[in-house]
């Protein structure tokens, strides 16, 4: 049963992540009066990358070929610890949500190393920027999640999701609204969305994520892109199922409940993706030195959320 749940969620993560990226790309194009790539184009891209040969710089060390697997697997492992369509999540390590954040940080660490490793100018620039941004984004994320964890009395994500479903929980608590706003800004920053980074461009002087991937090709690039898509899905799931656990199936529910839960999850995912698309279309990319301003806003929002959850016990 446990193995089945792990298998199911892994498949769901692998299959759904490229689709979410593709849908966001497609809708963004539609909203800007362009035709845009088909939503499932990302699958074809990944399949093509997997078939192609790799060109690896002769200066690159083992880190360069090791990093894609770390990025891919940490994202996947973090995804298994977040309840997607049923609680409890298939996997739970010590610390719950702390382990999720830690795994994602490990992936990011190797991504930044991989950007530095081939010693290209752009890669190092991308790594430095990524680390600058994450230094502020990560504390904001932790504080926002702690707000919910304090109200739920546990840092275990499955327990948080379960207690958010119980009757005594105040869903529309102001602390949670603040935490949600903070986490949404962090989501935009962590997935390289427009006010922080532009996911649609290569070879732009301001790129962050793409700059680190510049030296990658073939199979490694496929794993990097796929890993990034999975990380995005994991963060979105975290946001959805912690703050809006509507329709989430419980421990002993049958197949019908799981089906309803899957539908509810897809619906919520659709709504969140649309919100991301709207934000990306209506905002201009921030200058790099303005990004800390936005993220410090997220940080203060998260701090206020945490403090006000103490003030209104």
């Amino acid at each position, binding site marked *: 049963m446990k193995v089945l749940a792990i298998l199911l969620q892994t498949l769901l993560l692998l299959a759904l992540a490229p689709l979410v990226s593709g849908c966001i790309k497609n809708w963004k194009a539609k909203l800007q009066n362009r035709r845009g790539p088909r939503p499932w184009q990302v699958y074809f891209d990944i399949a093509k990358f997997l078939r192609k040969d790799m060109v690896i710089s002769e200066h690159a060390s083992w880190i360069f070929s090791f990093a894609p697997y770390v990025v891919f697997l940490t994202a996947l492992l973090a995804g298994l610890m977040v309840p997607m369509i049923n609680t409890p999540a298939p996997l739970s390590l010590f610390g719950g949500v702390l382990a999720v954040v830690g795994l994602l940080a490990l992936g990011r660490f190797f991504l930044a190393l991989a950007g530095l490793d081939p010693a290209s100018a752009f890669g190092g620039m991308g790594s430095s920027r990524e680390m600058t941004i994450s230094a502020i984004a990560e504390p904001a994320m932790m504080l926002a999640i702690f707000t919910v964890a304090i109200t739920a009395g546990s840092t275990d994500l499955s327990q948080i999701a379960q207690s958010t479903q119980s009757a005594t929980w105040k869903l529309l608590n102001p602390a949670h609204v603040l935490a949600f*706003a903070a986490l949404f800004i962090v989501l935009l920053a962590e997935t390289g969305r427009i006010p922080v980074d532009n996911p649609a461009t290569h070879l732009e002087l301001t790129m962050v994520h793409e700059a680190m991937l510049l030296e990658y090709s073939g199979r490694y690039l496929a794993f990097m892109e796929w890993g990034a898509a999975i990380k995005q899905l994991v963060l979105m799931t975290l946001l959805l199922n912690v703050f809006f656990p509507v329709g989430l199936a419980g421990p002993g529910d049958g197949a019908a409940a799981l089906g309803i839960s899957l539908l509810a999850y897809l619906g919520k995912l659709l709504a969140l993706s649309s919100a991301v698309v709207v934000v990306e279309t209506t905002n201009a990319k921030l200058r790099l030195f303005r990004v800390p301003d936005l993220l410090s806003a997220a940080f*203060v929002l998260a701090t206020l959320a945490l*403090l*006000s959850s103490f*003030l209104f016990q």
Partner: protein
Amino acid sequence: MNPIQPELASQLITLLAAGMLVIQLLMVVQAMLLTNIRLFAIQSLLLAGIAAVMAYNHNASHVYMIAVLTIIGKVIFLPWLLNRLVQRIQIHQEIEPLLNAPTSMLICGGLTLLGYVVARPFTSLDRLGNNTLAIALTLLLTGFFLMINRRKALTQVLALLTVENGVMLAAVALTSYGMPMVVELGIFFDVLVAVMVLGILVYRIRENFDSMDTSKLNQLKG
């Protein structure tokens, strides 16, 4: 004749009020003037939502009027007027605050806490949306801070409008049947006229001083 439960209505009001607070804090860091105006419009829309929930729950028809007037005046008319003003005087789009964004954000965080602490003795009152007094106070305080922190006359007008939103929130959410119609209408037209007059004033300042920087007004000749 209470179609929705008071519990749900109370939560809805608190949620909308928290949304207003989030938007206020976003306005503090947002550097573009036009986006600031758009944020103000959204904040006013949330205020109208609170008034509508209040009216629905208390069956008070004149509170509906407030909601409608807020939508017409603050969501549609005033943003339109300010947008037109921005285009007519062709000012530099970026707001240049005195303090940088992280510092002002931290100060506003402190002001929010102050608002919460001051309003705390009142939160135990058994009434709809009992957290809203804290948020109204916070809107007031951060609105004043925005006004002090910004140099240009037009952005100060915008800050004044958010202060007014805070006052309106307190008026709508704390008096269980809203204030008398006449008072509401009075406040409403007051703001409307004030913004129009200020708009003309901003235009004149700009004409005479070639700048909207109000700190230059203490010079005799621009």
